[in-house]
């Protein structure tokens, strides 16, 4: 095997851009941060072609395992390999501690909020959150009013998106309380990375994440209806055409549970069964990866055949647990988001450990005027959308796009919020042969059953295009493995 001379750090960094944005690896002076030093030295020591060689072998691992997702809204719109970057993103034990505490606090408060709004609605009576904001939310489900949810857990599986600002501080950009996805990429990234950098991985003392499927299973089991000691747990998928189908099959296999579609389920006397070759088998817990709208045609959208007719009544009767509960999208509405710090204060009597991003509510006349005057500097988001759809990034937009959004905002102000264009942190990525910084976020996965459980790490999403701020996989983003260090 031919090995060229090792790369020098300077060659490695090339024209590495350092400016006011926080760089995960380097101080503003250019010096490598202490916890990144071992990584930098390893990279510098590698023979010239070695990085590319490892990249290729990692590519191949993703390809043959068929780790793909589906892109909507394109003609060819089919399977694509999930793009990823070879270099890990490092998080120190101290940083992680704060993230973990902050997310635990936040998820606890959000869950209390959902419970409150769907029962006594005290927070509305106390005028902490405006009533009309909640009742106008398109993800509010009046069917959930007064319904007793197992263990009072509405949101068993959560993925919150964090950004790091140029102060070095982590903030929460949004919470995903409906059907957060991406955890399979977190797990497969790790598997590939362990093979790609075995020695480096060992020397860093990285905290493990591989037990996530087991934790998820335990979480779901803890939410089983009373009197079902050996619950039959299933994962409900919309089917093979869903963008996250790979993840559904992956998680079902890792947990050893059945992957069901709506057409596999029937209800009788408010009990859910699945059709098996041995006859009907009772279902106790459903890990639901189907949106509310499509879950039960009798209660939600009647034109959908993805769900199971009668599911909601069985749920209401307490014969089956559905996780996440219905109507949780209320709490990740981007306008309700603005009130999360106030929720934390109201329910827990604490200040938010992880702050929010400054958010303008366009239903407020004053804020709307300010936003419309500054569309070119702000990011506009539709409140009920996710995955980077329905978004305007002011500084990167055309006049026509801005006009279009202004028109939509005027027509339906409640449907939009605005946030400043954030200069969030960048991490080194392998681009051709050199390191280049790209914007990254972090989506940890939070499980909530008996208690809140967060596997150390999450999915670091990367805006692979130079200068781009969009990290969503549906919009050309990629991912990185995230190493949370023991020390």
């Amino acid at each position, binding site marked *: 095997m031919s090995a060229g001379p090792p790369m020098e750090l300077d060659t490695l960094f090339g024209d590495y851009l350092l400016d006011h944005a926080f760089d995960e690896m380097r101080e503003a002076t250019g010096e490598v941060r202490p916890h990144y030093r071992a990584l930098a030295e390893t990279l510098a020591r590698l023979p010239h072609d070695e990085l590319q060689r490892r990249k290729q072998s990692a590519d191949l691992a993703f390809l043959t395992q068929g780790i793909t997702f589906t892109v909507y809204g394109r003609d060819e719109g089919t399977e694509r390999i999930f793009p990823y970057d070879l270099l890990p993103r490092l998080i120190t034990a101290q940083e992680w501690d704060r993230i973990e505490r902050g997310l635990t606090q936040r998820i606890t408060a959000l869950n209390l909020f959902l419970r409150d709004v769907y029962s006594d609605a005290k927070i509305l009576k106390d005028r902490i959150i405006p009533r009309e904001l909640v009742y106008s939310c398109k993800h509010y489900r009046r069917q959930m009013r007064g319904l007793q949810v197992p263990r009072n857990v509405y949101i068993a599986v959560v993925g919150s998106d964090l950004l790091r600002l140029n102060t070095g501080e982590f903030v929460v950009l949004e919470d995903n309380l409906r059907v957060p996805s991406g955890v399979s990429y977190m797990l497969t990234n790790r598997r590939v990375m362990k093979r790609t950098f075995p020695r480096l991985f060992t020397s860093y003392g990285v905290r493990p994440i591989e037990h996530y499927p087991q934790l998820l299973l335990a979480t779901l089991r803890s939410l089983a209806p009373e009197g079902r000691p050996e619950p039959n747990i299933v994962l409900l998928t919309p089917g*093979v055409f869903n963008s996250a*189908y790979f993840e559904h099959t992956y998680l079902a296999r890792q947990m050893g549970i059945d992957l069901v579609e709506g057409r596999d389920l029937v209800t009788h006397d408010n009990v859910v069964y699945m*059709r098996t*070759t041995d006859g*009907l088998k009772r279902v106790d817990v459903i890990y639901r990866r189907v949106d509310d709208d499509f879950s039960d045609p009798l209660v939600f959208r009647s034109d959908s055949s993805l769900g199971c007719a009668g599911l909601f009544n069985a749920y209401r009767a307490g014969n089956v647990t559905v996780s996440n509960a219905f109507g949780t999208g209320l709490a990740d509405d981007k306008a309700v988001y603005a009130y999360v710090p106030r929720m934390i204060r109201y329910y827990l009597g604490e200040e938010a450990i992880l702050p929010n991003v400054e958010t303008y509510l366009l239903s407020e006349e004053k804020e709307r005027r300010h936003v419309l005057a500054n569309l070119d500097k702000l990011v506009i988001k539709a409140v009920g959308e996710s995955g980077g759809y329905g978004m305007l990034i002011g500084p990167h937009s055309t006049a026509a796009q801005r006009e279009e959004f202004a028109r939509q905002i005027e027509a339906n102000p409640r449907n939009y919020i605005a946030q400043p264009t954030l200069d969030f942190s960048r991490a080194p990525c392998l681009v051709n042969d050199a390191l280049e910084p790209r914007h990254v976020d972090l989506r940890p996965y939070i499980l909530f059953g008996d208690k809140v459980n967060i596997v150390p790490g999450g999915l670091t999403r990367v805006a692979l295009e130079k200068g781009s701020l969009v990290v969503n996989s549906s919009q050309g983003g990629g991912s990185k493995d995230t190493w949370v260090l023991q020390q």
Partner: protein
Amino acid sequence: MLSRVADSLYWMSRYLERAENTVRQLDVTMSLMLDTGGTSAEQRWRRLLASLGKPAGLEWNGDLEAMTSALVFDSLNPASITFCVNGARENARQVREEISSEQWQRLNRLFHQVHAPGAQEQFASNVNDTLASILDGIHLFKGVSDTTMIHSQGWQFIRLGRYLERAYASATLLEVYQPDLLHLAEGDTTGYQYLELVGLLRCCTSFEAYCQVYTADLTPDRILEFLLLNRDFPHAIRYSVDCLNDSIESIQRTGGRRPPEELTAGIGRLHAMLGYTSITEILSGNPSAFLHTIREQCMRIHEYIYRYYVHYSIQSALSV
């Protein structure tokens, strides 16, 4: 096991078996046509199409190249190899969590092989190699299916699909060949007849196996006996029926539900027909009707499997 999953595994397997059968029969027909004496190209193609079940949209039109290409690549024609491979992969994709990664990768590779850009040109320039490599792909898939998948209900449904399709296809093939076979001229010395008989055996990959049992002395009654009644050869109809029987029993053992009388009776009837009838009796009776009955029974068994394991009424399941 989920009914939908069982159904997908069953069809994945049936489609692949069908693709394999088409590949072999096409391959044999193409190579028999190299010897221009005896049966004409038209006759051969009519016979090929008949033994593939007279697929709609494929009529002999004299354009050999177009016909062959359609039978391999026309993804809109349900008889084509590509259609079958697509069907198998689509079914596999829907039960991705149930099959092993090795199975998935093999099937994926086969899928990409028939869809590769340039596959048709390559086929046109070398028919044999293409067919052989498709056959390889199918064999590899079957191999990893047997070695990497847990042999529980899912695997049994794969076997059900494979052997039901095989029994049905073999019965169709024999029904088509049988009139010609029984009216062969005695003492033919031109060698064409011999080629025909070898061709029939090769359609069921059974030439070498036949020779081991009967020597290379090819006679129509022995060939029929071998392909119908042999209990040890995997492409004999009796063997396939025995496997169906085993699989149904095994599914019952693991599931605990008794299969309906009509299903066990249906398989039992076939089993008895093939187990307790001698070739002399078949030939002295009406062989064509005999083969036809086998096909009908196969179709009925398919229906029972579907009605009992996959698409049963909720009422019937609740009353158990």
